[in-house]
């Protein structure tokens, strides 16, 4: 019984990953996430901060973009 439940859950998880993640990634290519990412990066790059700090902030922009793509 336990084995069957585990199998069903694993299958459901795999199907969800196959169906939802690519759909979310495709949505990320929509202008919304791209534009937000651009705005974030443009703000960071025009800030005249030190280069290490700039890189950290650009990474934050990419994390935000990832969240937008996955609709977290």
């Amino acid at each position, binding site marked *: 019984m336990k084995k069957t439940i585990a199998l069903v859950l694993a299958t459901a998880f795999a199907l969800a990953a196959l169906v939802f993640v690519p759909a979310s990634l495709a949505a*990320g290519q929509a202008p919304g996430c*791209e534009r937000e*990412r*651009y*705005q974030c*990066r*443009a703000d960071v*790059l*025009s*800030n*005249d*901060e*030190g*280069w*290490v*700090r*700039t*890189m950290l902030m*650009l*990474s934050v922009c*990419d994390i935000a*973009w*990832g969240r937008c793509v996955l609709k977290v």
Partner: protein
Amino acid sequence: MKNQSSVLFLGLLLLQVGIIKAGSGFSQSHILSGRVRETMPENPNSNSLYFARPAAIGHDHDHIYGLDSIDSEIRVFSKSGAFLYAVGKKGQGPGEFDGPNDFWLDDGKIYVSDAGNGRVQILDRKGRYLGGFKLKCFPHKILVLDDKTVVVSHLPSATPGEFLRKEKLVQGYTSSGDLVWEAVDSLSDGDPVFETMQNRHVLKAFSGGFYFIRKCNDPLARLVDNQGKIVRTIAVDKKFEWKTIAVPARRGKKRRLSGLFWDCDTSGDFLYFLVPEFAPNGDIVAGRSLAVFKPDGGLAGRIDLPVQVNKISVDGPRIYVVDADYKMRIFLTEIK
């Protein structure tokens, strides 16, 4: 008499040594005294001298122009630093900007890289809309060539997870927005953040084309003609001291960022690099000295400014800057 002869001989010897020294390493050193003094604008405490976020500073025969990306306007000053008027405002209509990041002055017109709106706008010097065109990317830098080709560059657009790919960073357009040519491959790395950092660049005009120069990790300035062909590369003088740091990158790796300049301008035949410097925390930040290069990449000299500056525009002996407090200031050098 003997003492007088000895002093004369010694004097001549020193003079000769001085001449030889000046003629060897710094043949153009007479253009650079290193002495700089600030000229006060007519109203030194005017709020107009302070920018919210300065994106670029430039000049023509009569005026100084400063672009503010937050206020989305170009402020126009007299050559003595008096604020005259502003061009543009935030918006999406004609003559309005959204996060503009560069501009170019040409033949009575202002070409604006209207980055947030993804377009180029052409205005007259009073801000009246003359034309423009949409772009497929967010522009980074802009200039206009002698033949009126509008040159627009952008930064790599790779998103995390995309495969390593090169893309052309510079495009030439007609003034109505038709793409004519593309030039200069990006330095690709697979890490979008590092890729962005090492592809930041400036475009600077020269007779018959323009310079494409990256801010770091690339010792070559590229001379591109008005057909988009790289006609020459110029190696930066080995005497120039790069500012290098190891930066964290993906998968725990460390990579090197070697800084060439913070901002750059041309005046006459010379290239002026605002040299970055190390902050106490080890980061690379804006500097306070200008390295001057000859057209062949040879180091011609150095100008030390009394303050840290973010943006420069060199107008012969006059240097217009935006300092670390985002205030516009004017310095005079003894460059002939």
